[in-house]
């Protein structure tokens, strides 16, 4: 498991579309500080935007925890999107490209997964959803086994 530095972890609320914009800015800033390249920053911020919107639209709001990580010489950023909404009944279905329970294109979860190195979803009907993603700065090829 990667070592984390809890001292610099920040938690950002996700309650409105103004918060989505704020989350994008903060994630971009954190990624830039950690030395992510421009394309990597853009991918991570885009993934964050998709997941934060899910938290808002499907989870009824929540928050995101932003944690810088270190693994040897590699640095990373972990984002955990937490809501206490209705949860996801069928995760496999929700991860399918094009499937949407809302007004989106159904690319939120599946698309976000393709944009990061690690992706984990923890959900239970009635108890909310936590989606955790990690992106590393360099060298680590993204897991694309299912693409």
């Amino acid at each position: 498991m990667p070592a984390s530095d809890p001292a610099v972890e920040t938690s950002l609320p996700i309650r409105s579309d103004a918060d989505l914009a704020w989350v994008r800015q903060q994630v971009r800033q954190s990624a830039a500080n950690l030395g992510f390249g421009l394309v990597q920053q853009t991918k991570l911020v885009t993934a964050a935007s998709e997941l934060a919107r899910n938290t808002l639209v499907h989870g009824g709001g929540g928050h995101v925890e932003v944690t810088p990580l270190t693994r040897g010489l590699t640095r990373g950023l972990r984002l955990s999107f937490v809501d206490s909404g209705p949860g996801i009944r069928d995760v496999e279905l929700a991860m399918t490209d094009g499937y949407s329970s809302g007004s989106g294109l159904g690319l939120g979860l599946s698309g976000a997964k393709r944009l990061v190195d690690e992706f984990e979803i923890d959900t239970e009907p009635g108890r909310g959803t936590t989606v955790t993603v990690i992106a590393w700065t360099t060298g680590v090829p993204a897991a694309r086994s299912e693409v």
Partner: protein
Amino acid sequence: MTAPYPVHATGVPVLALGETLLVSLQGELHDGMAEQLQQDISHRIADSGANGVIIDISGVEVVDSFLGRILAEIAASASLLAARTVVAGMRPAVAITLVELGLTLPGLTTALDVDRALELLTRRSTPSASDGREKGT
């Protein structure tokens, strides 16, 4: 709601360049603003009779599936109002990200920058304005 053109509700000005509308998106666009912009552009097309819309996204750092859908829907509704839409100035990092996200937006016309978008729109709307002047016998 009192103004005839509620363009400022979004903070995004819609400029008229001849028969083309130019919209320049800058920085962070809230979801609500993007949806409002869709309405503003449609109304402006209907009111002005514009036959082209250029959406300049060179100032946009992130296009997610929501904004992508809005851009595609603006183009689709503009098309129903007889106007062509060109999305101009997408950043390379945004293009790479969109492909990986799985959002390829078929049907959306793009141009590298506003100049080329304008060229594309005016060339199509006045097909043989210059060609017709060729000397013939």
